[in-house]
């Protein structure tokens, strides 16, 4: 019910919203929770396991019960806490985990079956028969349990990631945080102040306290205004610091305000990485419930939350409120309710020596032992020294005391310390390097104490950072002592709830202890205590106390479970912002990309690169038709292929040749200027790393080509070998992959084509096979290499990247007039298989120079990377699988990559495995499928027929083992 006066709400601004389809109204400044309570809605959700009716418990992000779903379709977002949702016009929330409706939930039958559903039920019951697990048990459990559901569709909303740096990060903008931020800001430090609420002030917004004679909330607003006006301060509201990480790095989730979120293209949430030289944790404290029978009924709420609804939102959660606590702070709730004109049925204090000056029925040394009513609270039973009293009430404000919010201090494996005076845990100093706790999260409970400690801690931090803190005046504020006598559970029959969100009761914890899950970590996993989305913020300490009692240990000996990030739930969309779809990985395009797309070429990914697969011509309906044509075009006329994706590494300096001799198995110091040589590179463990050609452009200048796949790896390797192993060599290494556009011009007519565009024509004498040199291409300085990956007479011509597109178009246009044209990766692959040229399908990381038949390329005259390891007996064992060619000779003419090889008569089992197929393609040149494969003792088995079995695709073929070079074995075509 809305109170007639007060609250930080704008009564002039009515806001219409929907809950489960019904229309309601609230005011600007409301949360969904306060607006629901103002409309007297008590039942807001159903519990996880037993589907018990649940109401709003808290007024903050720790809320376990009031979870709702917003949005429709792809934008549907489940498990949002009504207590942190700002009310906005048109907001439509739906309750969760109830079917067919919130009021009538058929799965509430689980609640009747509770005796069978206690801790460990699933583990014990669904063990067998095993086959039923996947088909029956799991779907049933999944349907019955759980919270909100995802839409299953991609969310089109925008999310963002951001980075920030500061001298001092202040986490929490309550009295301690505000004083800390103010002190740091006035000293000139760069300050970021984060608070998860939509306004600063923390508990000052929820209390009827005064600072320097003005309402606490007004003081907070004033300080915040001053801070926001300072250029060295960033005040971030709606921002939850979710994790503490190494080296002063903090994760924070910022939610857009409803107005901001509604702007087209605006980020709904931003995930921040904040790097702070120092951090001050002023996260406050969270109130904990008391466990008694049916303490989860809608209407049973935290005392501090009831106070918050009354003071901040001018809403009373009940007409006749009972207050129950074990500490002085609970009395404030009664006082504030009275001040607001709300009827207080009784104030119950479990401490026998408690006193009150309030004019309310007062029970000391008494305990609420049961709540009555199902969908809303109707009465409570009170156990007094003289017996059980029953009181009619529609709201119970309970307080078991306050738990300092120590979570962030534990994110780097720190353990909090037990503080008997507070009956709670407080942070261990230094648990997070550079972070200091201040205020209630450090166990300082009075407002004055928080203000003072915030200023003091900030001053200490400032001195450490080399700033000179100015004198600060601490405002006048209450400084009442915090007195508490622990009360965790009220004895009695029935189920008493600890973890509301995961439906864990006192009985479950005791049962876990009985069944010897005595370690706190075991108890947690056995009962699921604290494993829900709220991570047990309300319940963990009480659960530890129950476990400690059940195992006969103290709470400090029992210890805590590990608090891990995030402090509050973070949407995956925010953490992975920008990583959806095309944002998942960078895309690299060659300069001919647009021309290839315009020619209708389907693009395929090669690492981050996109390369044309084939160039379809009118009338071609399958990729094979295009590929076959392109292969024949290269063999008979001329083909053009953009090969810019291959790595290009420029190596210069007096030590360049020596470095190459060291990284390649073969020798490059003997390579004449103007010549290219094929090189093989090993890893230090003796396996092949990469291959490619290296050209000598000058006495001290080489250009290395790597495969597309290994370009980054080879660059790293060269830098390592140079800097880490041969720093004595005077050499500079630079990747120039993106600086040059390079096209292969391949086929018998390649030289004719080139001579049409080169300023000075070439011939075989001046430019023989494996020659290289500078050329002018229509006035542009380029480079020409006579190298061939197709086996034809071929060249690769390179120009600075800005001319790449023109070069490609020019070459393809000319080629087409000569019966040729562009060819794609499919044809390139067939051409190289026909010639037995290897790619990373063959040099896949487990093959040696010996395996691929290149052992003679390992120079005996010098040391090189991988030499020692390559000589190990196991790497030159003749029984190893060696590169061979395969041709189908049986009825089945198809070969498949990945298939395994077996002796003709042997069963196709793992034990009989003789090798595997790495590359296949249909050769239009030879009119047959061809394959490259690794076969045990393969080189000695040419002519033998083996059986290829593809277990996955169900294909078997008989193949003849042959030399991997199928076409033009003597290489005459490339040379002539």
């Amino acid at each position, binding site marked *: 019910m809305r109170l007639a006066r007060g609250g930080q709400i704008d009564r002039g601004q009515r806001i219409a919203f929907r809950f489960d389809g019904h229309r309601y109204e609230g005011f600007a400044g409301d949360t969904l929770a306060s607006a629901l309570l103002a409309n007297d809605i008590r039942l807001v959700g159903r519990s996880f396991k037993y589907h018990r009716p649940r109401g709003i418990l808290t007024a903050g992000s720790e809320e376990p019960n009031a979870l709702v779903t917003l949005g429709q379709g792809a934008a549907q977002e489940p498990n949002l806490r009504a207590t942190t949702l700002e009310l906005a016009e048109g907001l439509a929330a739906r309750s969760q985990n109830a079917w067919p409706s919130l009021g009538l939930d058929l799965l509430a039958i689980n609640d009747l079956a509770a005796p069978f559903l206690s801790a460990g039920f699933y583990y014990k019951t669904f063990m067998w028969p095993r086959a039923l697990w996947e088909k029956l048990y799991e779907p049933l459990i999944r349907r019955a349990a759980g919270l909100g559901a995802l839409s299953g569709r991609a969310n089109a909303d925008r999310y963002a990631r951001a980075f920030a740096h500061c001298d001092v990060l202040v986490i929490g903008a309550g009295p301690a945080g505000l004083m800390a931020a103010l002190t740091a800001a006035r000293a000139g430090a760069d300050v970021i102040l984060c608070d998860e609420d939509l306004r600063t002030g923390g508990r000052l917004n929820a209390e009827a306290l005064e600072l320097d004679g003005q309402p606490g909330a007004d003081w907070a607003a004033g300080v915040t205004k001053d801070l926001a006006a300072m250029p060295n301060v960033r005040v971030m509201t709606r921002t939850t610091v979710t994790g503490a*990480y*190494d*080296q002063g*790095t903090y994760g924070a989730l910022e939610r857009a305000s409803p107005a901001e979120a509604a702007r087209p293209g605006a980020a709904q949430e931003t995930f921040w990485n904040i*790097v702070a030289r120092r951090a001050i944790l002023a996260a406050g404290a969270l109130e904990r419930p008391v466990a008694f029978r049916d303490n989860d009924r809608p209407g049973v709420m935290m005392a501090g939350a009831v106070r918050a609804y009354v003071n901040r939102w001018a809403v009373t959660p009940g007409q006749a409120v009972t207050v129950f606590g074990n500490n002085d702070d609970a009395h404030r709730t009664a006082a504030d309710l009275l001040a607001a004109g709300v009827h207080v049925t009784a104030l119950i204090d479990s401490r026998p020596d408690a006193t009150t000056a309030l004019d309310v029925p007062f029970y000391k040394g008494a305990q609420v032992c049961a709540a009555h009513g199902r969908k809303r609270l109707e009465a409570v039973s009170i156990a007094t020294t003289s017996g059980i009293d029953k009181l009619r009430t529609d709201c119970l404000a309970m307080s078991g005391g306050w738990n300092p919010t120590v979570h962030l201090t534990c994110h*780097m494996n720190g353990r909090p310390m037990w503080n008997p005076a507070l009956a709670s845990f407080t942070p261990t100093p230094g648990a997070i*390097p550079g972070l200091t706790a201040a205020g209630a999260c450090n166990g300082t409970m009075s407002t004055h104490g928080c203000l003072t400690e915030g200023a003091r801690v900030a001053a200490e931090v400032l001195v450490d950072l080399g700033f000179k803190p100015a004198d600060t005046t601490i405002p006048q504020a209450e400084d009442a002592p915090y007195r508490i006598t622990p009360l965790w559970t009220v004895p009695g029959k029935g189920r008493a709830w600890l973890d509301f969100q995961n439906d864990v009761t006192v009985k479950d914890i005791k049962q876990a202890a009985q069944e010897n899950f005595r370690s706190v970590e075991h108890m947690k996993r056995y009962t699921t205590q604290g494993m829900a989305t709220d991570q047990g913020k309300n319940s963990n300490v009480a659960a530890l106390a129950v476990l400690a009692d059940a195992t006969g240990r103290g709470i400090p000996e029992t210890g805590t479970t590990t608090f891990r990030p995030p402090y509050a739930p973070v949407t995956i969309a925010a953490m992975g912002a920008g990583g959806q779809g095309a944002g998942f990985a960078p895309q690299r395009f060659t300069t001919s990309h647009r021309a290839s797309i315009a020619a209708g070429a389907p693009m395929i990914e090669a690492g981050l690169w996109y390369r044309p697969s084939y160039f379809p011509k009118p009338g071609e309906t399958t990729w094979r038709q295009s590929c076959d044509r392109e292969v024949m075009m290269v063999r008979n006329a001329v083909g053009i292929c953009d090969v810019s994706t291959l790595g290009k590494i420029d190596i210069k300096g007096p030590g360049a040749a020596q470095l190459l001799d060291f990284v390649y198995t073969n020798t490059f110091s003997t390579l004449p200027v103007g010549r290219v040589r094929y090189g093989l590179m090993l890893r*230090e*463990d003796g396996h092949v790393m990469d291959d490619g050609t290296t050209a000598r452009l000058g006495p001290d200048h080489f250009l290395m080509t790597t495969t597309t796949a290994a370009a*980054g790896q080879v*660059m*790293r390797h060269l*830098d*390592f070998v*140079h*800097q*880490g*192993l041969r*720093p*004595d060599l005077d050499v500079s*290494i630079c990747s120039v992959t993106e600086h040059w556009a390079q096209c292969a011009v391949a086929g018998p007519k390649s030289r004719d084509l080139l001579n049409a565009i080169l300023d000075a024509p070439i011939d075989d004498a001046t430019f023989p096979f494996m020659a290289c040199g500078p050329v002018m291409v229509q006035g542009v300085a380029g480079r020409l290499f006579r190298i061939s990956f197709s086996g034809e007479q071929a060249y690769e011509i390179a120009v600075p990247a800005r001319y790449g597109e023109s070069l490609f178009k020019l070459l393809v246009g000319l080629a087409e007039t000569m019966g040729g044209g562009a060819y794609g990766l499919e044809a390139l692959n067939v051409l190289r298989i026909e010639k037995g040229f290897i790619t990373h399908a063959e040099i896949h990381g487990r093959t040696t120079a010996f395996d691929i038949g290149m052992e003679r390329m390992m120079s005996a005259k010098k*040391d090189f990377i991988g*030499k*020692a*390891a390559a000589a*190990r007996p196991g790497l030159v064992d003749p029984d190893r699988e060696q590169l061979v060619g395969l041709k189908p000779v049986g009825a089945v003419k198809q070969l498949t990559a990945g298939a395994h090889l077996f002796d003709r008569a042997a069963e196709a089992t793992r034990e009989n495995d003789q090798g595997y197929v790495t590359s296949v393609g249909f050769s239009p040149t030879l009119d047959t499928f061809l394959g490259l494969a690794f076969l045990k003792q393969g080189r000695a088995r040419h002519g033998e027929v083996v059986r290829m079995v593809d277990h996955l695709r169900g294909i078997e073929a008989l193949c003849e083992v042959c030399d991997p070079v199928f076409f033009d074995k003597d290489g005459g075509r490339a040379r002539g």
Partner: protein
Amino acid sequence: MRITCPICGERDRREFYYQGDAVALRRPDPDDTPEDWDAYLHLRDNPAGVTRDLWYHEMGCGAWLVVTRNTVTHEVLGAVLASDAARGAA
């Protein structure tokens, strides 16, 4: 996590490529025993505490660094150029 590159200054770890133990800088001679080579290639300590690793400033200057850090506390204690370390300067 941030590493202070001797050339570029303090940089985010996303700029670096992690390799492994800095033992890789102590390459045996070609005719050292197979045991020496085995140790160099494959045997690594797994210290709880201070360790020296190779990191490559791949998205920066291209320098290989020897980074000293603590595997328990995650403190990054320092970084020197691998070329200096290889020359015996560090």
